């Protein structure tokens, strides 16, 4: 299939970028979106042009490295990562806009590649357990109700890809932070640092310049890990409770 691509090109963080038109020719329908870009880059290189820079790593939908906002939707028209998106979702001759994940907290490194370390910094502010927990416990030595285990697992599925931020009209990272907070808040090991965790992660999130959730739920719709917005509800509950205990009690 042949496609008309409108791709964001930008030399570096300082320079102004712009949309550049490309024709991608002879793309197999079974190619993934990233393979389509590989083919485009080969064609560009054959002509002596600079290839389009984009993020990718595992190409198995696990690592969360691939990004791209495709026709205005983070990771494109299926609720998977971009590496798991196949060209059969598009029509022959279709025009496709390919832009980087947009957020002030995600500066463009080059072309479609953005720097998402703001998420790492939030994670480092409290998204872990300080104590060394040693090797895996014997089964059932710490009892976790099935419901809580399921909820923790659901939240732990977050791969930190940043699609929630990219899709949110406010570039909010609350689905991400909510997932991390919910993950630990659902387990006994997460309790001792539960308050400090939510206070520090929210403070870091605000400092990094992410926006504020206004309940549009775009994030949930694009999340490749199916994180539900109820994790934001958990965040909204835990934060004031922790703040009351921290500053009043």
């Amino acid at each position, binding site marked *: 299939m042949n496609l008309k691509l409108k791709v964001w090109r930008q030399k570096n963080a300082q320079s102004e970028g712009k949309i550049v038109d490309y024709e991608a020719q002879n793309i197999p329908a079974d190619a993934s979106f990233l393979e389509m870009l590989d083919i485009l880059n080969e064609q560009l290189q054959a002509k002596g042009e600079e290839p389009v820079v984009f993020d990718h790593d595992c190409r198995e939908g696990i690592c969360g490295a691939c990004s791209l906002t495709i026709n205005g939707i983070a990771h494109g028209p299926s609720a998977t990562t971009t590496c798991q998106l196949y060209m059969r979702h598009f029509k022959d001759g279709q025009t496709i806009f390919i832009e980087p994940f*947009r957020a002030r907290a995600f500066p463009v490194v080059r072309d479609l590649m953005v720097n998402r370390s703001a998420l790492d910094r939030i994670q480092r502010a409290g998204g872990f357990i300080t104590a060394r927990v040693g090797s895996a416990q014997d089964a059932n030595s710490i009892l976790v109700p099935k419901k809580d285990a399921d909820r923790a697992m659901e939240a732990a599925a977050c791969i930190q890809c940043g699609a929630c931020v990219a899709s949110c009209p406010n570039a909010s990272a609350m689905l991400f932070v909510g997932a991390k907070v919910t993950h630990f808040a659902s387990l006994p090991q997460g309790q001792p640092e539960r308050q400090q965790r939510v206070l520090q992660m929210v403070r870091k999130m605000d400092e990094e310049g992410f926006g504020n959730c206004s*309940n549009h739920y775009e994030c949930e719709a694009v999340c490749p890990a199916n994180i539900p917005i109820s994790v934001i509800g958990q965040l909204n509950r835990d934060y004031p409770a922790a703040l009351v205990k921290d500053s009043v009690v």
Partner: protein
Amino acid sequence: MNFLARFYGSSIGKKWIVALTGLVLVGYVIGHLIGNLQIFAGPDKINAYAAFLHSIPGPLWVVRAFLILCFVLHIVTTIKLAVANRAARAQRYAYSASTELKPAKKTMLLGGLVVLSFVIFHLAHFTARVTDERFHHLPKGEYDVHSMVILGFQNPLVAGFYILAIFFLSMHLSHGFQSVLQTLGVQSEKVRRPVTIGGQALAWLIFVGYVAVPVAVLTRQLQVIP
């Protein structure tokens, strides 16, 4: 003090303030509606209600002050959040699309501004009575709200603006209800659908209730009783 400053300084704290003040204002919108609907029970009923409210100026002004505080906080905090949200997406998308965005969500800010301008007019019109000479000598005296409302809505422009503003208010509430519950963290996956649908139903019931009065005046179902 420390708590309030930290709370209001945070993203989630501001969201809570918008949600809590929104909840108070919705309560007021419902209370006001119940007051309005008394107009269908005849002049004596609603005029007595107006006279009663004015007979207790102390509590009335306490409530008014609290409502004004909530109203101002709701707006100022929303503006703060909106400014931060714009800044958080420094560069817009060339192609913008959405999977979830509904008209009610898109018009939260615009609709809110229409409602704000309406509230200012409405207070000048019916509360301060500075826009209409006739309101100073009503047939049944100062608390003749019955005649005042009917005279007011006989002007199609006034009635039209009223209906438009109520429409935007209901749009605002149709997203607002479930938004409040989500922000206060009381919404779970299980209640999400019923809360969304219930919130929308309540918003449009409020629309019907409010709009019934000007419609009844324009269709001459309600007339000034001399």
